[in-house]
């Protein structure tokens, strides 16, 4: 049962990759990257149940923080630019 749920959760990342590749503007790509980072945390939680190793959740916690820092940095970069220039 958990393997099937893990496959579904991994397949959802394809939607985010589609949005990253085909996004019309740069903000769409950043939204896709943000959502991709949150989905990986769910994958880490299910893998931690399947293998019964607690340190895989540490990877998830570190991934949350790094995704937050990356999104804030890209947002500050985007805030100082203009679309028309």
């Amino acid at each position: 049962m958990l393997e099937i749920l893990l496959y579904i959760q991994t397949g959802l990342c394809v939607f985010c990759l589609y949005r990253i590749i085909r996004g019309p503007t740069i903000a769409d790509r950043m939204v896709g990257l943000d959502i991709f980072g949150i989905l990986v945390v769910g994958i880490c939680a299910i893998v931690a149940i399947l293998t019964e190793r607690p340190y895989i959740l540490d990877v998830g916690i570190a991934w949350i923080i790094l995704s937050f820092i990356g999104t804030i940095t890209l947002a500050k970069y985007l805030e100082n630019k203009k679309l028309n220039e």
Partner: protein
Amino acid sequence: MADIIIILSTLLIAIGILFNIFGCVGLLRLPDVYNRLQSATKCVTLGTCSILLGVLVRYGFASIGIKALVAIPLLFFTATVAAHALAKASYRFGIKLGEKSVHDDYKDEDYDVS
């Protein structure tokens, strides 16, 4: 008793993945940056928190359950703050709203873009 705990945990994880599916369909189908951001961030954050709650229910307050309990508020704060910053940055960047949008709260405020 152990069977009930395992069934409850698997049910929580399945509900979380259902929310993730809704959020990713919204990310794929909605017409605008702001609509996509709103749909995807809300649904995916709640779904991932439900998955982590399933981990906590399954293992109790052992090492793996405490780590899942720590990850839940961290995910709530960071995901919402990042989405808010991203929406404001993309508005200042100059991306227009969709054709069917009816209300624009940022329109009357004058920002100094520096």
